[in-house]
């Protein structure tokens, strides 16, 4: 199997695995138990990891709060900020159309609690329309969430321009950097982020640990309350194994990003130019300028071919790729409502009358030119087979 779904989580780096093994065996203390060595040892390991994660995003380590997932970090930012007594008088939330479900869904739920939710439009390349965003901002706006980069279509936002707009309005700016961490530089000060989410799984770590940066002075309440861990913002015994993994992953990507990112960019450019030259009916989704995409992220749709059947054929031929089609990715969905076309594809104006799903191939430092060569070599057979069976194909 050639793994081209790294945006769903990279394979853990061997150094990460080596680093966490002792925490699964002899270093099993609870970081809140300060009266004996085992507990203090866990605490120190956690704080060492916190420094690494903070350094990756140019933050102070006491502004970094560990959570269990990017989803939890996004939920905590949104719900924690709007529910603070000092923010309760403001009832307007703005999300870009590309935001992750972990922001979209809680925001929608808030509508019934008296909040107004506005969606900042994006261009066909997936960039936030800053004129539209500016027109949405007003003195009632309490929270604005913008993704640094989109995992499904790869587009990277111009955070500098966006943050200037948002901060001028006085609203809270949340940046979701889950997809870009480990691939692009992140700096909370340059971004002027009030809160920022990143996840360990995209840092060659393991699933189950993420972090939320919270700028000092931001008014925020906890969502999960209990024993006061994470400065009372996120209670619950810390996942030391995951946190240590995330710290080591953060160190590795910070120290090595400058060497592997150019290689990923070159592989991504090679993949994109070759896949689009195979057929004139293969279309890139999102930004076609690779310098404005996540390095190594290529997404496309094929006229005449349904997304899931494409995905299944890639899987049969030994390639793990992701689908932009909710239909395919939600094959275990509870009901047919979950089978709607991806809101991301709709937002960037992909014609849903002829497109039923896209494919995203996301590379990591473990991918090679040979992987790209093989997926390019196998694609014509897949497309030809599915065109032959498609009643929509007439060439």
């Amino acid at each position, binding site marked *: 199997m050639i793994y081209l779904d790294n945006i769903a989580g990279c394979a853990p780096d061997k150094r990460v695995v080596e680093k966490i093994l002792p925490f699964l065996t002899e270093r099993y203390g609870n970081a809140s138990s300060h009266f004996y060595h085992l507990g203090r040892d866990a605490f120190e390991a956690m704080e060492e990891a916190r420094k690494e994660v903070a350094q990756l995003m140019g933050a102070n380590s006491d502004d970094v709060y560990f959570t269990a997932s990017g989803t939890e970090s996004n939920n905590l930012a949104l719900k924690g900020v709007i529910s603070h007594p000092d923010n309760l008088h403001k009832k307007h939330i703005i999300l870009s159309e590309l935001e992750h479900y972990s922001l979209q869904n809680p925001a929608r739920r808030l509508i019934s609690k008296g909040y107004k939710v506005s969606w900042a439009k994006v261009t066909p390349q997936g960039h936030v329309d800053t004129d539209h965003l500016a027109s949405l901002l007003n003195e009632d706006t309490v929270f604005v969430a913008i993704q640094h980069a989109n995992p499904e279509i790869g587009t990277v936002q111009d955070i500098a321009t966006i943050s200037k707009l948002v901060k001028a309005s006085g609203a809270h700016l949340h940046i979701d950097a889950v997809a870009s961490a480990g691939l692009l530089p992140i700096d909370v000060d340059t971004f002027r982020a009030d809160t920022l989410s990143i996840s360990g799984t995209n840092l060659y770590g393991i699933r189950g640990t993420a972090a939320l940066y919270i700028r000092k002075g931001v008014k925020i309440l906890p969502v999960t309350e209990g024993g006061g861990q994470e400065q009372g913002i996120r209670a619950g015994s810390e996942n030391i194994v995951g946190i240590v993994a995330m710290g080591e992953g953060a160190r590795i990507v910070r120290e090595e990003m400058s060497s592997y990112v150019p290689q990923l960019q070159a592989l991504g450019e090679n993949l994109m130019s070759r896949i689009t030259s195979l057929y004139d009916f293969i279309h890139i989704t999102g930004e076609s300028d690779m310098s404005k995409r996540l390095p190594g992220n290529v997404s496309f749709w094929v006229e*005449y*071919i*349904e997304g*899931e*059947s494409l995905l*299944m*054929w890639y899987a*049969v031929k030994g390639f793990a790729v992701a689908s932009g089609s909710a*239909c*395919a990715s*939600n*094959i*275990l*969905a*509870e*009901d*047919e409502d*979950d*089978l709607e*076309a991806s809101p991301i594809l709709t937002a960037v104006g992909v014609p*849903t*009358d*002829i*497109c*039923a*799903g896209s494919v995203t191939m996301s590379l990591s430092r473990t991918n090679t030119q040979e992987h790209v060569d093989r997926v390019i070599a196998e694609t014509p057979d897949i497309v030809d087979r599915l065109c*032959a*069976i*498609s*009643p*929509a194909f007439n060439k």
Partner: protein
Amino acid sequence: MKSPYNDTVMDHFMNPRNMGDLEDANAVAEVGNPACGDMMRLMLKITDDGVIEDIKFKTFGCAAAIASSSMTSEIIKGKTIEEAIQVGNNDIVSALGGVPEVKVHCSIMAEEALEDALKDYYTKTGKSLDDLNAMIHKYKGDRPEHH
């Protein structure tokens, strides 16, 4: 966790039976559209004594839609019109060994295409559509349209 599709579904998806065009078809139907996520064109050659002698199809859709089309074609080939009408969606799904619950709707398309193709045949040959509808009603009763 098992793969969402069983081996039979995957076999029909990867090696669809009776896939293609039928030049001398005398019953043709097209149901669904790409915007709905699936579309099927069914072409039948029906003999004067009402036997489905040949069948070809093309389907745009997920693995379940393609496999259901293929399985339907295999089951109804050689059957009389009356026998073919009795083949329902449940028969297709069970012949495939089941499909995920949310994909059952994808398999209904083949049954609809068959009924539409038979209507096309009855219209083209000047036979009474009322007779066909009565036959469909006899075996299937009233049911809502899928699309």
